[in-house]
């Protein structure tokens, strides 16, 4: 039932917020905070409970499951399940969700109720994506995130919002369509082979797919997730969407929406199509490296603060792509830490960008400069997050990127060297932000208030979270470990069978796969 509550709370909270919008602007905000705080509390409670019994759960794939028949004729069920990986991502979702509400407090003054409805429904969709383990249901939530996000950009966005919103919608919709085709194809391949037509993830694992078909299906999923991630060359929707979205929209986009792509790669692409994914791994890793370097290069050239931060996301998420396709324990753990740390550090930079825009009504860094003496607190905070973004050890991003790189090093040394150059590039654009905005001579005389208490609370919370991940990431690593172990075992077994040269390897494979299923799917 806990899983159901994780969905009901934001959905109902969103509706209530919309309705209460008639009474004024305050009630929707408090309803949203309350709903998300309960979600966060529930998540933490599950986490603590799970963490104290962590050893027990090593053998069991799912911590909590919920299953309800939906359309049994087609093998569609309302199947939710949660493991350590989804738990971490939901905790991040609730945390950034609360922050998004708080940062919109002053910024959003127009149709407040409807704004919070959209925000909460996006979050519901994201939580749904992280716990839906029926592929049909997963696709449902996947689409559910998009429409409110589209509204968020097109109603509360900045000057070029129509263009950005439509671009965002087309990219995600077109790529989602490819995933839908791949899901259906997988459904029929599995049904034809076994006679059981189902969308259940556990059942679909280990489906015996002809190699060429597997590659196409894998690509269908990969493109959908790659667009979300985003990986070069399908990243171009992101800078526009980020730049035009209101602050909360940017935080949710960078902090959470991109992460659904990473989650999809870890949860679906590699486990469902292990062989195809491994054949494709080299190309994916090259795309990761290209994203890191190309994103950083574009970031460096920007003069629009939000656009710059948006391109840094492309660069940082390249590390995630790299970590996932290196597919060893170090790299995967690293990818997860990057996912969380990037959500915080980039989210915070967007909040700062939004705060500046609110004060001086521009994002153009050519008009800023020398602002440290006017807003020293903002400068200090910005310095902190710039340092997080360039991978300063002691802060969360370093742990993630270091683990990704060291894991990657075991797989491909040359690509690791190129990826590591991304750290120099990150140094350049991060301190360039500080220089352009806070250091140097003021280019225009801006009078503005420093961060207020509300903003400082948000910033300090995010700073503490990054310090925690940077200095004591153990709880995160330990929580993700059982889930990753099980995912890795599944893939390894399939590979092991492939490598076995015995003449009757086909039979062996079936045995291995059924063994794997018994381990993962037994519940």
């Amino acid at each position, binding site marked *: 039932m806990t899983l159901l509550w994780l969905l009901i709370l934001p959905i109902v909270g969103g509706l209530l917020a919309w309705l209460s919008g008639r009474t004024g602007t305050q009630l929707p905000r408090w309803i949203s905070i309350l709903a998300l705080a309960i979600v966060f509390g529930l998540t933490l409670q599950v986490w603590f409970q799970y963490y104290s019994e962590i050893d027990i759960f090593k053998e069991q794939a799912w911590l909590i499951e919920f299953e309800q028949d939906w359309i049994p004729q087609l093998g569609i069920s309302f199947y939710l399940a949660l493991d350590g990986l989804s738990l971490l991502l939901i905790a991040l979702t609730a945390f950034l969700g609360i922050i998004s509400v708080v940062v919109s407090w002053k910024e959003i003054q127009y149709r407040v109720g409807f704004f919070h409805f959209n925000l909460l429904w996006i979050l519901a969709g994201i939580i749904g994506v992280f716990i839906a383990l029926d592929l049909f249901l997963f696709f449902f939530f996947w689409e559910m995130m998009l429409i409110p996000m589209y509204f968020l950009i097109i109603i509360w966005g900045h000057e070029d919002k129509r263009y950005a919103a439509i*671009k965002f919608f087309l990219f995600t919709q077109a790529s989602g369509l490819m995933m839908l085709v791949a899901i259906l194809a997988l459904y029929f391949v599995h049904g034809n082979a076994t006679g059981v037509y189902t969308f259940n993830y556990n059942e679909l694992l280990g489906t015996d797919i002809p190699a060429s078909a597997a590659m196409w299906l894998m690509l269908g999923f990969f493109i959908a997730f790659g667009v979300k991630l985003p990986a*070069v*060359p399908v*990243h*171009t929707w992101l*800078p526009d969407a980020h730049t035009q979205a209101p602050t909360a929209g940017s935080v949710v986009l960078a902090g959470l929406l991109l992460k659904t792509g990473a989650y999809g790669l870890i949860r679906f692409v590699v486990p469902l199509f292990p062989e195809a994914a491994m054949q494709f791994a080299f190309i994916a890793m090259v795309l990761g490296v290209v994203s890191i370097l190309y994103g950083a*290069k*574009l970031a*460096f*050239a*920007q003069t629009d603060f939000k656009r710059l931060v948006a391109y840094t996301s492309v660069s940082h998420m390249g590390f995630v792509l790299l970590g996932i396709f290196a597919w060893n*324990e*170090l790299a995967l*753990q690293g990818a997860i830490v990057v996912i969380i740390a990037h959500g915080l550090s980039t989210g915070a930079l967007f909040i700062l960008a939004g705060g500046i825009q609110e004060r001086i009504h521009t994002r153009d860094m050519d008009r800023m400069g*020398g602002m*440290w*003496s006017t807003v*020293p607190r903002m400068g*200090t905070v910005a*310095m902190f997050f710039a*340092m997080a973004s360039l991978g*300063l*050890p*002691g802060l969360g991003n*370093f*742990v993630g990127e*270091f*683990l990704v*790189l*060291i894991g990657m*090093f*075991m797989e491909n040394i040359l690509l*690791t*060297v190129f990826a*590591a*150059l991304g*750290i*120099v590039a990150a*140094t*350049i654009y991060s*301190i*360039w932000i500080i*220089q352009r905005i*806070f*250091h*140097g*001579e003021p280019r225009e005389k801006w009078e503005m208030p420093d961060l207020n208490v509300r903003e400082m609370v948000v910033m300090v919370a995010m700073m503490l979270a990054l310090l925690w991940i940077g*200095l*004591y*990431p*153990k709880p995160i*690593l*330990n929580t993700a470990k059982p889930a990753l172990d099980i995912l890795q075992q599944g893939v390894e077994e399939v590979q092991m069978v492939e490598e076995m040269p015995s003449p009757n390897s086909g039979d062996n494979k079936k045995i291995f796969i059924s063994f794997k299923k018994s381990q993962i799917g037994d519940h």
Partner: protein
Amino acid sequence: MYELLWLVPFFPFLSAVVLIAFGSRMPKPVSGTLGAGSIGLSAIITIIIGINFLTSPPEGYSYTQVLWSWINVGNFSPAISFHLDALSLVMIFVITFVGFFIHLYSTEYMIKDEGYARFFAYMNLFVGAMLILVLGDNLVLLLLGWEGVGLCSYLLIGFWYKKPENGYAARKAFVVTRIGDIAMLIGIFLLFMHTGTIHIQQILDIAPRIWVEGATIPVAASLLLLGGALGKSAQVPLQVWLPDAMAGPTPTSALIHAATMVTAGVYLIARTHVIFELAPAVMTIVAIIGLLTALIAGFSALTQTDIKRVLAYSTISQIGYMFLALGVGAFAAGMFHFMTHAFFKALLFLGAGAIIHALHEEQNMFRMGGIRKEMPATFWTFLIGCASLAAIPLVTSGFYSKELILWKSFSSQLGSTWYFILGAVGAFITAIYTFRMVFLVFYGDKKTEVSHLPGTRILLTLVVLAFFSTVAGFIELPHTMGNFTLFSNFMASVLPAVPVFDYSLGTEFLLQVIATFLVAVGIYIAYYLYIKKPETVNELTASPAGEGIYTFFSSGWGFDWLYDKVFVQPVIFVSRINKRDFIDSIYHAIAFSTEVLHRLLTKTQTGKVRWYAMVLVVGAIIVITLAVFL
């Protein structure tokens, strides 16, 4: 007593956090007391631990304190844990002790600055990070300190952030050192991949067992680690950032860019010396880079007009000597020179700061002069520092440490006569530029009036450092003076003795005489050129060739120009032309062609029934034709 070790980095960090959070609301005396006091506490604890270490050394001459497990993935398990042994003890002593006096000096020196609390916050943060760097028992924690000091260096070089050129210098320092760090990072990965551990001591234990001398992996790993060391320690070809780093406040230059951070590379190589010993070819590279740097920077120092830039080039050059020592396997000698250099170079920078303050922030030596009568204490302490830098025999610490390096570079089995000759030439140049500085600043005609005399805290610091610049050398005396080897004995538990060829006492004495003679000649040349016949210099630089050489040296041998053309400009160019991301134009092209297609098809919707009917007929004919013929 050793349990107190964690407090040594803790106090500076705590004070830094308090100063960052509340510094802007604190009165200056409070933030000053906090800033200097925290380092003082760390220094006291370090001295207590040091005394304990000397009187009752821990088992195996090392002590490890594990605070908490940091990252734990498979066998990759760095902890937040500190490793105290003779090497890290010397380092933390210099960091906290010299650091404390530099902080004390700063409480007076920076008093008029509006960013007083911010300054101490950054300085404290630096000391904390530097302590982590040298205490870290695994390579990842070392990297934490390593990047932390880089950050503080960046923050402090750009401390006066309103001037764009300071920001430029700060960014240059950060980016250049980080380029070296990438090499180091890959080196760490390589070591982890092959040894299966990230703990420094374990790696050093395993390395000789799995690799033979000259094997590929240790050669590659030590080259990569060297890359990091070259960046941090400002050695050729990554030395370009240090002269510009002088944009920071002078106490920063003393602490970070002379005494401690820039010697991190020396520490790194000494710490991982086992890997380097397995790669003799890399050792040779270290020695040659050290020598080259010593000479290149020495020649540049000869032509500088800014007193701080002279000292900056001199620092690069002196670290070159430390690298020479490391390269011939004389690790203890390198550390010895690190220690004496920390004292006398900090002294020189702080003295220069006192002079700059006294002369209305004038940094150009050619606008100074004749101030020795008015600033006697500064003059004498500065002279002591210069004597040590120039290695005046017997009475200066610099003499003992530099002689040791020169002697080892000759006598070590990895050494060579060439090393000695070039090293001695370097010492000769050092003597010239050092006394050029003394003569220009303190002798000759007065060009700027002394407006402000240093107060007690500045003078106290100068005197203490002058004292140590003199006596610190006596703990290691050469064979010709009784072969007293307290320092290298102390280091012997960590750093092995150099394998040397046997030479007679006479040879050693002869080499000392040669080096000393060169120093004396150097001082005379400085005297001749800047006191006796000052016009000679102008005559020398008047000819086109002379002017060319002068510009070449003073611009740091054109490295900046080269890097700008080869790296900086291309990157900026590519960024600029592709600011709008050409990939997006592909999608715009798709959108555009859809739009065009849409317009074309719209044109067919004319609403004329005749037109529709005709299209229908033509379409039907085509379909039937196809059906018939295919």
